[in-house]
């Protein structure tokens, strides 16, 4: 598997990974704002957010219809939809694409749910690797506290209740997240994770993230064109009309 840079895409993909409550979503949001304020071409994509697939996923989750296999497949479907429809075209157009969770989330979660690792990796082998992957490494207790403080109740699949680890959702969540952390740590080196200490303050983490992005990407290359693109599209439109009229 190759990164987008290795595949000669003009765009670059930055992914964040980590446990629920590791603060990765906050960090990628701040990164996005920083890049946007510099006038760069940025696109943000979130795990499990493709419109059509989402309807099926939430139905499956609400009615507890999902098994480890269908859980894995439906998330792969969601990923493929975003990948083929948004990520690849935008990367072809020279965008910096920011992903809140990428294939490693599936590798960690699905394997904890009991899916064979080679099968899960095979499902996702159509996807290129991120150019940068930030892994927000927090102590399990810190993540748990963040999640539990923010929410009164844990969701069924989020707590890994389908795995029957414990009848108590909080205990189940603890065990489940602990196992996911193990999976992440196991692939950290081979997947070139840039490990960020997520026990630090928000600002401290963001400073490290911005520093690494500046070092690794030539940000000036992703600047939005200044010229107002009013003329070319009008011509293009006319041309396509002419083409369409050819019998």
């Amino acid at each position, binding site marked *: 598997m190759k990164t987008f840079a290795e595949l000669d895409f003009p765009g670059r993909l930055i992914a964040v990974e980590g446990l629920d409550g590791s603060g990765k979503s906050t960090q990628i949001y701040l990164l996005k704002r920083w890049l946007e304020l510099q006038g760069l071409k940025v696109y943000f994509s979130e795990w499990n957010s493709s419109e*059509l*697939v989402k309807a099926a996923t939430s139905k*499956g989750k609400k009615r507890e219809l999902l*098994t480890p296999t269908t859980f894995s497949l439906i998330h792969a479907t969601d990923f493929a939809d975003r*990948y*083929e429809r948004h990520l690849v075209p935008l990367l072809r157009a020279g965008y910096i694409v920011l992903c809140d969770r990428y294939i490693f989330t599936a590798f960690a979660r699905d394997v904890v*749910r*009991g899916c064979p690792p080679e099968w899960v990796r095979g499902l996702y082998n159509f996807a290129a690797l991120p150019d940068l992957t930030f892994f927000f490494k927090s102590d399990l207790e810190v993540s748990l506290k963040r999640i539990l403080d923010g929410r009164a109740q844990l969701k069924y699949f989020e707590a890994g209740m389908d795995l029957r680890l414990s009848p108590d959702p909080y205990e189940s969540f603890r065990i489940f997240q602990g196992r996911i952390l193990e999976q992440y740590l196991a692939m950290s080196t081979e997947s070139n994770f840039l490990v960020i200490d997520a026990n630090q303050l928000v600002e401290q983490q963001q400073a490290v993230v911005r520093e690494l992005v500046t070092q690794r990407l030539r940000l000036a290359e992703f600047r939005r064109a200044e010229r107002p693109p009013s003329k070319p599209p009008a011509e293009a439109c006319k041309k396509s009309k002419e083409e369409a009229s050819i019998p």
Partner: protein
Amino acid sequence: MKTAVKNQIVVPHKTERRFYGHGIPGVDLEQLAGKLIVVEGADGSGRSTQIAKLVGWLEGTGHATVQVGLKRSTLVSEELEQAQQGNILSRTTLSLFYATDFADQLENMILPALKAGFIVLADRYIYTLMARDLVRGMDEAWLKNLYGVALEPDAVFYLNVPPEELVQRTFAKNAALDYWESGMDLGLSRDLFDSFMKYQITMQKTFRHLQTTYGFTIVDGLRSADAINADLQKKISAVLAGK
């Protein structure tokens, strides 16, 4: 004496089971006492007619049956239909969506029914899904891994009907060719009829290719429905008897 023979019910012979690949986690194959029979073939090849006849025959001979097919899962069938109508999903996505639908039915219908000792009649299985994707340029190794979740059936019958005949049967029933069954998304031809013929020929070639791997039985679908069914009954009887 004659009635006694007629009432003799054959208890299906137990055979060794396996998944094509990694399979479904946590399934005890030993417990799957039922039989899985798959009928494959293009639209208009007579699959549903044959399955209806088989159900009658099997129930008459004392076997409980369950029918499954593609795009019938509780989980995603509605969304899948919607996506297809709009033609909005790209290839890998559609492929994974179909696989989700398949896996949902496998786990929630097929495996429980087999565990309960039913004879499961599947109107199409992974082969159609794989053939459709292969024709559209998807990677075969990727598909094999994906559908490694599938249970190997006890018998697979492919109803072989040439495209010229399929087109006649389709017109007799609907007077219209289906967009997807004509492979219009492939851009083989702007002419629907032309595209249908080309697409069906390509699909048949692909099935023949898959046959070399999965070894299903090719059945001549040009005979009368009863003649075909008699043939299938004979073959299924042999499967039940463990031959």
